[in-house]
């Protein structure tokens, strides 16, 4: 079973993050770049899903040149091959562009299952997996907190605003997983050494066929990005037995109008 995993390099959410307000794009140079944590779980879920089904796991990323680091990490943790799409024309790519790029790359891989995180920690739209499923005609089984397969059908549990849904999806399918689906795998020295011998293919837009051509065309433009004034520290008191009454008074004062 061939499984493709979508991973993304993002600015570390443990630090202050920045926008380049001139271009309206995420300023990726001013924070440490890390793999989106949920994508590391997606990789673990993909490896678990493939167990017993003669798996071949391919990690796929799109990003700046340095984003190869996130797929290399996937190789060290157990992915068999990696594909990086990098092209200066994709800087600041919107959701429609990104979906076309990822779909075009997946077309060449022909996976039985695509596994993604339910949303990235920077863009955070949570729509990209469904959009890739739309372009490729894959059965969309997204936002799953648990997932398994018998090699023919995906079984999983989806959580959304309407409740918890038990679902089944025929292969080929696209799965996105939430934080509950799998624990992050840690690379050992042996894995890191083995990763050096695994194939990492780097592609540009021109190598993605008609999907690449469509992806070159932005569908949205950012007019401006401004930092909102930060909240400031208010009054801090030590509990003297009256703090509960103060809290109650502030709540009443803030909601009675």
């Amino acid at each position, binding site marked *: 079973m061939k499984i493709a995993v979508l991973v993304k390099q993002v600015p570390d*959410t443990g630090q202050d993050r920045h926008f380049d307000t001139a271009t309206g794009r995420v300023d990726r140079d001013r924070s440490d770049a890390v793999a989106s944590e949920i994508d590391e779980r997606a990789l673990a879920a993909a490896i678990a899903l493939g167990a017993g089904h003669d798996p071949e796991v391919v990690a796929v990323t799109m990003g700046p040149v340095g984003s190869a680091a996130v797929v290399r990490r996937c190789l060290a943790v157990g992915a068999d091959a990696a594909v990086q799409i990098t092209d200066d024309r994709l800087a600041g790519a919107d959701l429609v562009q990104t979906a076309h790029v990822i779909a075009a790359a997946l077309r060449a891989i022909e996976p039985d299952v695509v596994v993604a995180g339910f949303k990235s920690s*920077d863009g955070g739209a949570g*729509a990209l997996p469904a959009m890739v499923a739309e372009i490729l005609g894959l059965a969309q089984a997204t936002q799953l907190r648990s997932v398994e397969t018998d090699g023919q059908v995906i079984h999983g549990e989806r959580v959304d605003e309407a409740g918890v849904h038990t679902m089944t999806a025929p292969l080929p399918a696209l799965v996105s997983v939430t934080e509950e689906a799998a624990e992050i795998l840690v690379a050992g020295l042996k894995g890191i050494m083995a990763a050096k011998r695994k194939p990492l293919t780097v592609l540009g837009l021109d190598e993605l066929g008609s999907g690449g051509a469509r992806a070159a065309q932005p569908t949205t433009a950012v007019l401006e990005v401004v930092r909102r004034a930060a*909240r400031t520290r208010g009054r801090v*008191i030590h509990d003297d037995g009256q703090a*509960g009454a103060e809290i109650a008074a502030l709540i009443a004062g803030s909601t009675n109008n």
Partner: protein
Amino acid sequence: MARVLCYVGRAAQALSEATTSLLGVAAGVGEPIAVVATGPEGPSPELVAELARRGASAVYAGDLGDGAGLLTVGEVALLEAAVGALGGGLAAVLVPSSTAGREIGGRLALRIGGALLVDVVALDAGQGDPGRLVTTHDVWGGSFVSRAHATAGVPVIAVRAGVGGAAPAAQEAPVAMLELTGSLPPAARIVGTRPAEAAGADRPALGVADIVVAGGRGVGSVEGFGLVEEVAEALGAAVGASRAAVEAGYCDKSLQVGQTGVIVAPRVYLALGISGALQHRMGMQTSEVVIAVNKDSEAPIFEIADLGVVGDVHAIVPQLLTALAENGAAS
């Protein structure tokens, strides 16, 4: 006048604060038309009257058929049919900025050759370029605000619940039934649905509540988290939690407030035993008033709290419950 399609969902769940937000935001830039998924009988007269009261000038309805049991693809087909039925004059399609809404919106944007804009908190006609709608977005939990517009095709816009005012009521909303004839693409089948474990049937939804009471690791245990629920009960508030509380198993994951959980902006956010990690603050820092209780006087949550109380949640919550009971008795 430009028309704006508003996807209000399946008939059984079509009326919510999210619906009001969509119709209200749409009315600011054009004529709101509600699109609702129904059975073959179409929408009930009560639903149509209520959609009109909330501002819909027309209702497009369609029977999802087999799509009713499938994930996303039925709704996408319905909206595609609504776009087709309208012909020209379509300014935008609005969907709720919910888990399912954004997925439906993304697929629709590709289907109609449009653009997808998410986490939108305001929509306006823009300056100097009439007819091109400008979207305002909350980015990274309100740390940044961005403005954008579509440059190709019809924009599909995912609107946050609880934004915008109510639309003026329409006199009536004529109903058009749409025929969904095309075959559906491969899809996942929904075998069963049950309510989320922690929904708390009589509590307001986390994303739209006026008051949110949230617990963190500082509550100490599942029993300690019960204090959070008691305060929420007394205030008619929604219950939230930090990621640490969820990971410690004190409560269900669906309560998680933060970057990878629910993003909230209530009038009052009361954080009990939450230290205020950056990824949590991303989910609540646009709340109007933030009140925090934490044992550690150095906790980062105090940097953004209007009122911070250094103390033990287990000592302060009983005081608070007593005060709330007294206030309740007095009013």
